[in-house]
């Protein structure tokens, strides 16, 4: 375990720094390396400083935090549901957040209110799924999964309805939110706070999660307090997914494929996979966002398109490898 941990750290930490630097260095306006360096030293021109520090830096930090949150949430969901196909949205979280956000957009509220509404929607979805699945007392991962899928479908229907009746002018904004968009992410620091907090909380639980992944009976027989741990994972995963979706909309694939890719390379120890998922998710989303805003500049793509374009072939490759 230690060896995998150190290897993962040695690869992912520098890659994280590089990803953020790349996001600062590249954009639709070309800034020569010398000028970039000047900005970092505090001597850059006003234009370059504004571009790098006021536009690119918050955006890169927001992308990294959101990607980290999604990667971590995906890993946690896969352990909780004991299912490698689980992703952060499988329990309807992104649906609830989307409905909240779209309703706020429809009402013409400010972006801050849209974010707040998204967060509220995600939490509402969590409570609904929790309440429904908990119904007869004991729930199993299968029951939770089924409940989540049904609730997600319900949200999907509401989203379609909202899109159908919205004034045409609102549609582009709504669609971009649904596809995932980092451009309106403003203050990345709350998301960073949540990310760091949850990683620190998850690290000591790593071995417990390893045992939990063997099944609740086996885990209980080895001394794991199964119900409290499962609730803890569910709440944590919901909170961090809600935070991520509030920042960047419903970006897909990050939560699904990042833990998978890491498991192929580093094995199944959650003490390695959880922090690695956070880092790798951040790297992926930061790079994807950098591509999204530079690929066909000045036209801007939603980042969800890029993660899908990267994610689908990677996922197919993983499936092929695992035959």
């Amino acid at each position, binding site marked *: *375990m*230690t060896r995998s941990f150190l290897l993962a750290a040695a690869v992912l930490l520098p890659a994280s720094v590089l990803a953020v630097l790349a996001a600062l260095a590249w954009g639709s306006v070309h800034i020569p390396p010398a000028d970039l360096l000047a900005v970092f030293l505090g001597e850059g021109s006003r234009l370059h400083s504004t571009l790098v520090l006021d536009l690119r830096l918050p955006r890169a930090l927001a992308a990294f935090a959101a990607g980290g949150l999604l990667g971590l949430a995906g890993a946690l969901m*896969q*352990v909780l549901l*004991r*299912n*490698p196909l689980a992703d952060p949205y499988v329990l309807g979280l992104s649906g609830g957040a989307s409905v909240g956000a779209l309703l706020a957009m429809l009402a013409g509220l400010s972006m801050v209110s849209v974010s707040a509404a998204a967060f509220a929607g995600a939490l509402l979805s969590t409570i609904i799924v929790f309440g429904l699945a908990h119904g007869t007392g004991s729930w199993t991962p299968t029951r939770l999964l089924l409940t989540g899928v049904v609730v997600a479908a319900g949200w999907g229907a509401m989203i379609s309805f909202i899109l159908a009746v919205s004034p045409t002018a609102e549609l582009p904004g709504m669609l971009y939110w649904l596809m995932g968009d980092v451009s309106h992410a403003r203050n990345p620091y709350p998301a960073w706070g949540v990310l760091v907090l949850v990683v620190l909380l998850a690290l*000591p*639980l790593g*071995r*417990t999660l*390893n*045992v939990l*992944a*063997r*099944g609740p*009976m*086996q885990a*209980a*027989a*080895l*001394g*794991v*307090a199964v119900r409290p741990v499962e609730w803890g994972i569910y709440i944590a995963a919901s909170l961090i997914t809600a935070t991520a979706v509030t920042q960047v909309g419903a970006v897909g694939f990050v939560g699904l494929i990042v833990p998978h890719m890491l*498991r192929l390379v580093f*094995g*199944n*120890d959650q003490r390695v996979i959880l922090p690695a998922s956070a880092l790798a998710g951040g790297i992926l989303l930061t790079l994807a966002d950098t591509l999204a805003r530079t690929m066909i500049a000045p036209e801007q793509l939603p980042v969800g398109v890029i993660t899908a374009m990267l994610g689908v072939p990677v996922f197919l490759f993983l499936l092929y490898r695992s035959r």
Partner: protein
Amino acid sequence: MPADPLPHPGPDAPSVHERPDERTLLATRELVVDVPQRPDGAPLNLTVNPGQCWGILGPNGAGKSTLLHTLAGLRDPRAGQIEVRGRGLPAMPRAELARHLGLVFQSHHDGFPATVLETALIGRHPYLRPWDIETAEDYALARAALAEMDLSDMESRLVDTLSGGERQRLAIATVLTQNPNLLLLDEPTSQLDLHHQVAVLNRIRAIASRDRAAVLVLHDVNLAARYCDRLLLLFPDGQACWGPTPTMLVPSALERLYNQPLSVGEIDGHPVFLPRSD
């Protein structure tokens, strides 16, 4: 052999027999196991002391696994109490309980692929605090357990590539790594070949002969006769009887237990029961 026509609660019933003392590893008081959709069975008053090797016998559906899970604290009983080391079960934190007793399940579920060594190593979980990493000593214990179960050369194999028997031996190796005082095993030999059946049961009896004890659910009455010094018979109608092995091996009782006429014989001084077709 005593020729009692009808079995009765053996000499271990509370009024006459082994009372729990400070050495007792596990004791039950008027325990009624909760088997879904079945009426209450007979209350069980068992005392498991160090050095004992118990066998639980009964037909399918008699509630053997359910009893084992109840003893391990994984299921609530319908009535009665369980005490481990003199302390009532609900009061004991799960992590501490896992240091006293270990359970080998009948079937094994492996969510994500892990290696054989990693799987054996999770037996150390009850002894490690959250921030601890497994030490060299933990690894040594796991490796020793694997060696005992004849799995040393499969250390790095992925668990889902193992045969049924190998997986079962691995489960036993895990509980050996866990090293509790009381081992509960649910049909530990059902998928093993003859050689490994004998090896595993010998090993378990050797462990139980010191300051530990073992409780095994067995499907084979002959194995139980050879390796267990106490037997618990669970009848399909909910009745139960328990006691030293010789007093439990009553042919009529066994025939009622399995609803199957038996022929009795003796080999090397041990009774042997074989199904008889009329």
